[in-house]
């Protein structure tokens, strides 16, 4: 190599949610700088949540992200119910799980087929891909629509649903409204099973990384709304202990704070982490599909995230079928909460990784302090680390190809940059 400095630059990343860019600097064959720029402007949610009534939090925080509003609503209601000592009925719990399945189906289908697959096949976008793979793209749209329709039926609309409240739902659907979904979800399950096979046959770079995985783990379910926060290196805590173990730092090139595990640094959240920590909690149909596709129960290759997402897509279809079949409308759609001075925290699994919310309330139920840690913030360090290793391994590639591969490596994470610019800092001033 010459002493020349080589720079890879992507001004605005495409096929991600929100605004980010990439800068990689290579000097004498060594990567000397990697920066995932996040220039999505800050929207300052934690600041304006102060003084709002607790009941407003699910609708307000949903607006952090149009791609995963249900994740924000779920983390908000669970954190606030922890604060207020509210326990929901088993029927409401099941209905929330079904709503979350709708969001996972929509979000995973969008990412697998429309945002990530074009990278593996060398297209600029799904439009180009549709010309050669029309049937596949139509199936992708079909399964995506099932997820969206499930959210619309349960909660009014797919983006910023209106039916979620602290204590449950404003209105619970009756059995007749949900019954028609069984047939559609069965077809979606077939599409998802085919997607596991199809994604596993994509050209896959060999790129295993020694991540510390962090995800929720529940005694007998694949995690969505509940569980302990566990890691592949022995962390095992309740979500309310999150802030004692994780920290964030503010770097100049990012409007998102970077998450880090105290004393250990970078960690990974999202499908790879969830799958690797919870393989035994997947239903047999999803485990079998994963094995048949050549996936081990632990997956350390972020490029294979597309296959793991397809396995999770299959799981969510299967789970949604079970939930629709066994659905019993709750006697009351919600439990009325009583305001009290309190603090509550919760984590739920957004499609791209777990999402932490904490709220402190006064005795009237007004929010004194809010803290939100989204998945993309937590993964930022791992993304930058992946890029450093990946670029050093592929310096022989031409510039355009290497840049394209770097973009693909970022899209492995399904980054949601809109989500990532909101956070969090322990230093919150009280009025």
């Amino acid at each position, binding site marked *: 190599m010459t002493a020349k400095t080589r720079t890879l630059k992507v001004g605005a990343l*495409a*096929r*991600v*949610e*929100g605004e980010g860019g990439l800068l990689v600097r290579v000097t004498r064959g060594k990567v000397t700088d990697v920066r995932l720029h996040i220039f999505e*402007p*800050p*929207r*300052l949610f*934690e*600041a*304006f949540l*102060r003084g*709002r*009534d607790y009941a407003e939090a699910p*609708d*307000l925080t949903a*607006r952090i*992200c*149009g*791609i995963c*509003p249900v994740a924000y609503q779920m983390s908000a209601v669970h954190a606030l119910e922890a604060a207020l000592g509210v326990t929901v009925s088993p029927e409401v719990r099941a209905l929330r799980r079904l709503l979350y399945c709708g969001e996972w189906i*929509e979000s995973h289908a*969008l990412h697998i087929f429309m945002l990530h697959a074009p990278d593996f096949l060398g297209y*600029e*976008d*799904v*439009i180009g891909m*549709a010309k050669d793979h029309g049937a596949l*793209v*139509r199936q992708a*749209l*079909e399964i*995506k*629509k099932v997820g*969206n329709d499930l959210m619309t039926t349960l909660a*009014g*609309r797919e*983006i*910023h649903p*209106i*039916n979620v*409240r602290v204590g449950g739902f*404003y*209105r619970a659907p009756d059995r007749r409204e949900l019954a028609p979904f069984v047939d559609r979800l069965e077809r979606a399950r077939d599409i998802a099973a085919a997607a596991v096979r199809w994604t596993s046959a994509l050209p896959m770079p060999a790129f295993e990384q020694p991540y510390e995985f962090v995800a929720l783990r529940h005694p007998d379910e694949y995690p969505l709304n509940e569980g302990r926060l566990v890691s592949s290196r022995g962390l095992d805590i309740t979500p309310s202990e999150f802030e004692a173990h994780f920290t964030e*730092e*503010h*770097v*100049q090139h990012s*409007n998102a*704070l970077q998450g880090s595990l105290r004393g250990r640094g970078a960690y990974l959240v999202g499908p790879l982490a969830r799958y690797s920590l919870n393989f035994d909690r997947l239903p047999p149909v999803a485990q079998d599909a994963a094995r048949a596709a050549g996936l081990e129960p632990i997956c350390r290759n972020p490029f294979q995230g597309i296959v793991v997402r397809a396995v999770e897509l299959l799981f969510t279809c299967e789970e949604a079928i079970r939930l629709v079949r066994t659905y019993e409308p709750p006697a009351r759609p919600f439990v009325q909460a009583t305001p009290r001075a309190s603090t509550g925290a919760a984590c739920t699994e957004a499609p791209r990784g777990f999402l932490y919310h904490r709220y402190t309330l006064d005795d009237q139920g007004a929010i004194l302090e809010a803290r939100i840690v989204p998945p993309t913030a937590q993964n930022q360090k791992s993304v930058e680390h992946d890029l450093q290793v990946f670029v050093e391994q592929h310096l022989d590639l031409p510039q355009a190809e290497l840049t394209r591969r770097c*973009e693909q490596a970022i899209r492995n994470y399904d980054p*949601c940059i*809109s989500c990532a610019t*909101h*956070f969090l*800092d322990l*230093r*919150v*001033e009280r009025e």
Partner: protein
Amino acid sequence: MGRTRKPKLAVWKFASCDGCQLSLLDCEDELLDVVGAVEIAYFPEATRVSSRGPYDLSLVEGSITTLDDIRRIATIRKASKRLVTIGACATAGGIQALRNFKDVHEFVAAVYARPDYIDTLDRSLPIAHYVPVDFELRGCPINKYQLLELLSALLAGRRPSFPEHSVCIECKRRGAVCVMVAQGTPCLGPITHAGCGAICPAFARGCYGCYGPMETPNTASLGERWTALGVPPAAQARALRTFNAWAEPFRAAADAAAAAGKDRQP
């Protein structure tokens, strides 16, 4: 037959949640037809392709919150034959306009460890504050069927047809029970622009105004009704200060309610 050039469509993003532009990708049944009828010239959420202007139609999501945004929207306006704002952020400043009522520097300090790294304006303002806008699609989020109507109309060279009445009319049409009359639930439907299909009343809750103010809303009358239902002035102000807080009729009514609340404090 001569081949006509497909109209060039660009989708731009400012401060927002990405939900309104996602609405286009959520048109699962129509998406392939839409991309067949137009040339997607710029839409980073969906494609790496990036073609230069001029653009026949620019859809703009998000509000203006940085100095660079002001320069960027001016460039986009120059390059666009038609510019349509989509959603509450672009048409009214969005939820991030709640900073407009407070000290933004204190807000930044509350969220970020190094406020000096953050570049942001004091106010989050709608696109129309900076450049002329040809059409506005309301809502947080927009209704995807309204987006399709907009695209079809512009492709056909006609004016899009959208209702301009309040949510109440949509509520009656859908046969929903009035939650305010029947259950005494506070509802912003009478002063809120139609477009959502009155989904909140259909789910047994009051409208929370995510489509913003209708033309000439009678906010004072609704305020009296809410007061009669026992909603304190401070709560009325909060109800109006959400996703369309900076839209003039909501802003004025919220300011009045907030002032009334202060008067009553001991």
